[in-house]
């Protein structure tokens, strides 16, 4: 049996900034090995895990969950060895102050994002947040040594172990989107006990955080009959109206809207109902800002759906979710895939 929660905690810890996902791919492949027939890395680093279905007319299903996390890059090395940074992906700089990081230079080095002590900052200072450009990283060594070990362009990731909160709730960095990778793995494990006709291409995609890039190119290469993107969505947050957020622990979220194929949405909702699984429905009047967006219009068009896992405090070091939602997302996906046949796929172009 696949140990989902342990793998999620392990995957969360792996550093993998956008464009530098090879360590995540390796961990993903290690986890998926027992459940798939084939594993490849494509030319730009997407991890493609293939599990063959049975029968002669096998639908081709692509799953997309992204491997990358938001990260920083060294932009300049300052006198006395402090590092200035740029971001790849969208941080709230206010949430970076005082964090611990790993600097991936010639060696992996510990660092702290520095801050001015309250004693030395004026009341006026404390009214302003500090922009990303003014943040600096301290790796605790003299400039000469820094310059030997670190170069402009080197990657920096948040360093924070996962914490188990009450019940099945977990908090940590990069739960966006390692939670979805875990759901994909749970799905692959579930499929070993189901009879599915479809060939499944479970893709750990690269560079989602900087424009959903890997999913686009992977889908172009795979040319699936349909695709499901798996990502995180916002959990309920005080002060935010409830049509923008979902309950953590309330079940996987299925998106409805123009970017989502209506028949795939309906099938996912029906499968959840048949399995007596609680799901939440999110409506999106336009883009979803996930891997689903570029996949849908590739080539002659690919029917696409989106399943999300609600998560609070997105893009911070303490992204918080309920593991039950991850597990159920994986089960829902597997049951959905097991329900697919060639006839259903052909019907997707009938409007």
């Amino acid at each position, binding site marked *: 049996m696949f140990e989902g929660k342990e793998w999620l905690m392990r995957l969360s810890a792996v550093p993998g900034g956008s*464009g530098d996902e090879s360590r995540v791919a390796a961990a993903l492949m290690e986890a998926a090995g027992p459940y798939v027939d084939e594993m490849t890395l494509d030319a730009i*680093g*997407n991890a493609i895990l293939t599990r063959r279905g049975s029968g002669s007319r096998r639908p081709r299903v692509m799953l997309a969950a992204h491997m990358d996390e938001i990260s920083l890059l060294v932009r300049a090395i300052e006198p006395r060895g402090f590092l*200035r940074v740029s971001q*790849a992906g969208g941080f709230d700089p206010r949430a970076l102050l005082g964090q611990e990081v790993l600097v991936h230079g010639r060696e992996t080095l510990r660092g702290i994002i520095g801050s001015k002590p309250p004693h030395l900052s004026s009341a006026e200072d404390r009214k302003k947040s500090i922009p990303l450009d003014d943040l600096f990283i301290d790796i605790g060594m003299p400039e000469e040594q820094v310059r030997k070990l670190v170069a402009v*362009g080197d*990657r920096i990731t948040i360093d924070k172990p996962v914490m188990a909160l009450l019940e099945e709730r977990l908090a940590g960095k990069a739960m966006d989107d390692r939670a979805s990778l875990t759901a994909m793995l749970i799905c692959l494990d579930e499929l070993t006990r189901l009879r599915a006709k479809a060939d499944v291409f479970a893709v750990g995609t690269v560079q989602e955080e900087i424009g959903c890039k890997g999913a686009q190119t992977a889908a172009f290469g795979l040319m699936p009959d349909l695709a499901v993107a798996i990502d995180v969505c916002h959990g309920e947050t005080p002060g935010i109206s409830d049509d923008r957020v979902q309950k953590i622990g309330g079940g996987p979220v299925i998106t409805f809207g123009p970017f989502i194929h209506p028949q795939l949405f309906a099938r996912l909702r029906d499968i959840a109902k048949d399995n007596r699984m609680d799901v939440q429905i999110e409506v999106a009047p336009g883009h979803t800002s996930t891997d689903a967006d570029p996949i849908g219009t590739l080539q002659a068009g690919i029917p696409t759906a989106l399943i999300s896992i609600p998560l609070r405090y997105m893009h911070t070091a303490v992204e918080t979710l309920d593991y039950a939602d991850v597990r159920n997302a994986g089960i829902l996906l597997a049951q959905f895939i097991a329900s697919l046949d060639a006839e259903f796929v052909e019907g997707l172009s009938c409007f």
Partner: protein
Amino acid sequence: MKELIRGLLTVSGGSGNEGGVAAAIKAQVSGVADEVFTDILGNLFAIKRPKGAGSGKTVMLIAPMDEPSVVITDIGENGYLRFEPLGRLQASALIGARVRVGRTGRLGVIGVESKADHAHLEFQHLFIDLRTADAASAAAYAQVGDTATFAYGMEELDDHTVIGHALGSRAACVVQIEAFKNANSSATIVAVFSSQAQVGSRGAQVAAYRIRPDLAVAIDISPTGDTPEAKRISLTLGGGAGIKALDRDMVVAPAIREQLSRAAVKAEITAQIEVSPQAHSEAGAVFLSREGIPTGGVAIPVRYADTLSQMADLRDMTACVQVLEAFLSDL
């Protein structure tokens, strides 16, 4: 190199009107290319195949032919032209600028309505004065849809520093021309001189789809951080060839960055890493083509990149050429 830059800067190349630049570049590369052709969007392709068996691989170089320009959208009854920007231009920076209508070569000056608030200046407040009497006589020099580019050309500051109005395009083209001419590779080299880069890498998108290379390198300029109170960017003018790690449209995979850095070491030139969150390049569009194309970038450091007086160092440009040559010869 200097004369080549000067020559290319005398040609107007607004987005969608790159024909003149393409013709000038074609004259440069025809002699060494096995094949030269253009496509629907106006991209110019020059192909150099390996001598002998070759590796069977294709590498694509790409540099933009178009420069920031304005497109004429209206000819007033009084003969003054109204226009909108193609590319990343700021309205306030254009007051008093000298422009040339690409198709006819007519010079003009950009004026501003006196009532306009300079702090919130928009393009609708600007006009081009061709010194014609009325709409009918203006129409002889400009029509709706014509592009006009800035008319400054190249000046030399010292023996290795040049200033020009469209170095963002032409300096990259010159580096690519030189690298293509000199290159010896076991891979097939396709040099793409692209159209419509300023309006969002449109030429690059269809060019990459056509060529489907195994590997691509985008050649562009990138702003430096070595001027007073500049943004914290580590590129410096005269600091050597820039090797792209990150720009607004692209994060380069570490392996490709290292491949280019090794080429710099081999060529014994100074290189610097480009981390420029504000700079654009065509690398991102090429990367996204088809199944995904591994893509890197070489950046020419330029001061005042967003102005009509861009400053480049010929030694940096030579270094860029040498990095590319070493990179290509190692494929």
